[in-house]
């Protein structure tokens, strides 16, 4: 297993993809962080002329809570990046047929899959560090400059950062699980985009619309991911994710990774390679 792990690390870091994807994620998040920090801080200042009851009624978080909500964009918007890097660690091997030498060097395919799952965790963690920093640094700077509260003095904020890192870490392994099930790269990208950008957001909007407050949609991977962070822009839209304790959410997301990998191993990963 150590040998397989070493091989998988080398595969991850010996092509340019990991840092290209990472730069894309960081640039996108830095821009969104700046934009959101500015708009929210500006909006709060406008509202500060209103009487306190009216401010309450807007339902907008204030101060450090607002800062954390802005930082949570990293996890809410960019989890697709560790998801992709994990999934591509498999689809790239099928696409470029390196899966042949991989399986020749290690014919026990469950070892290969296991090594990919484990190797994806540190990769996801590094993505988390970069993505959270890329969101929080510019946003905190803007908040401080505009006289708001960046919340960096609160342990609650740092606990949030820690949970966001865990979120990214596990998302990479969810990607590996998905990749083992959908080994075709084009199909995989279509599925990832459709699920994260359309299917899940729509499903998650349904319960509040029909007046339910607890449904199975809380267990969808994106919802679980938000619950790990415990703060999310989605909660602004009435999709409250505060209900599930973050520890449970973390386990459930890990469960998604394991379940997808199990399905992938059973139905796809053991197939003929030709």
């Amino acid at each position, binding site marked *: 297993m150590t040998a397989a792990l070493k091989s998988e690390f080398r595969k991850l870091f010996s092509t340019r993809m990991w840092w290209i994807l990472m730069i894309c994620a960081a640039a996108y998040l830095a821009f969104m962080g700046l934009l959101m920090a500015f708009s929210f801080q500006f909006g709060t200042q406008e509202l500060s002329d209103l009487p306190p009851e009216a401010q309450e009624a807007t339902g907008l978080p204030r101060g450090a809570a607002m800062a954390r909500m802005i930082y949570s964009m990293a996890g809410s918007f960019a989890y697709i990046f560790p998801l992709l890097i994990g999934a591509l660690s498999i689809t790239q091997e099928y696409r470029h047929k390196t899966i*042949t030498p991989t399986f020749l060097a290690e*014919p026990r395919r469950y070892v290969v899959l296991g090594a990919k799952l484990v190797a994806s965790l540190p990769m996801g963690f590094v993505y988390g560090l970069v993505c959270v920093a890329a969101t929080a640094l510019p946003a905190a700077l803007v908040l401080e400059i505009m006289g708001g509260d960046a919340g960096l003095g609160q342990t609650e904020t740092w606990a949030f950062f820690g949970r966001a890192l865990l979120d990214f870490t596990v998302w990479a392994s969810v990607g590996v699980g998905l990749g083992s099930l959908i080994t075709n790269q084009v199909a995989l990208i279509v599925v990832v985009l459709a699920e994260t950008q359309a299917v899940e957001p729509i499903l998650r909007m349904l319960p509040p619309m029909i007046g339910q407050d607890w449904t199975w949609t809380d267990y969808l991977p994106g919802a679980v991911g938000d619950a790990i962070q415990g703060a999310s822009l989605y909660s602004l839209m009435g999709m409250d994710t505060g209900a599930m304790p973050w520890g449970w959410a973390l386990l459930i997301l890990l469960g998604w990774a394991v379940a997808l990998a199990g399905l992938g191993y059973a139905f796809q990963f053991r197939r003929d390679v030709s």
Partner: protein
Amino acid sequence: MVEDVIEVSHLTKRFGSLTAVEDLSFQVQPGRVTGFLGPNGAGKTTTLRLALGLIRPTGGGVTFDGQKYAAIPRPAHHIGAALEAASFHPGRTALAHLKTLAPEVGVSDKRCMEILELVGLKADAKRRVGQFSMGMRGRLGVAVALLGDPGVLLLDEPTNGLDPEGISWIRSLLRAMATQGRTILISSHLLAEVENTVDDVIIIAKGRLVHNSSLADLRALARPQTIVAANDPPALGRLAAGQGWAAQPLPAGPGRTDAALMVTGPTAAEIGQAAFASGLALTQLASQVAGLEQIFFRLTEGGGLK
């Protein structure tokens, strides 16, 4: 070095309704270079992929020294393979490609550089494989196969894309490895490409075994062919029919004004004797060298010797 015999027994693989390999059995001996031959689509690559556990047989199996590939611990250390489809990530360097495999193969990083030197890619070690020519990819594929210093080597169409220098390089490499007692199987769809390399030949067509012998025994299968012409062509025709020779008319061509026959079977001397005995004057009697390629073609065309 372990003396590894490759044993293919009753191997069958069906892809849906298509039978790619059917009840194939043969052995590959150590210390010799064995050519695994057959036209395109004969089932060579499929057989090798079955042997390496990449695809699952419908029936039968392949063992190396009695063990299935997947059951051998660190198999790439004992069995090196380069399959037809060069499989590299274009964005990875040659050295990085080997290094991704080294831990599982069970060799050091130093070995990766050594093997690149051996296959003549030392100067290109840090170049991305996407920039490599066909021949360079072929060499890198061989490097992957040799990485674990294996006792068994399986190469699928190793001469494809290689320049003449590369072909002669691979020839001497395989010869040297066979001399060390290793078991070497190389596939090709052209007998001519490997006839100077191999000791034994295994020929398949349409997924079935059609021939399995030493190269020398294959050569012995060549039947003599002779061009015969006479000033009395009808008499020559009667003679051929009377003797029961397999004869085909040849049109008049350069250096031959009379219609001639291509006679397969008897030697030139036997034909000359028979003509003399029947009082026929021959104007041409020329033996043709039956090439291996012609035998190969005959074997694979009809799915067996005619």
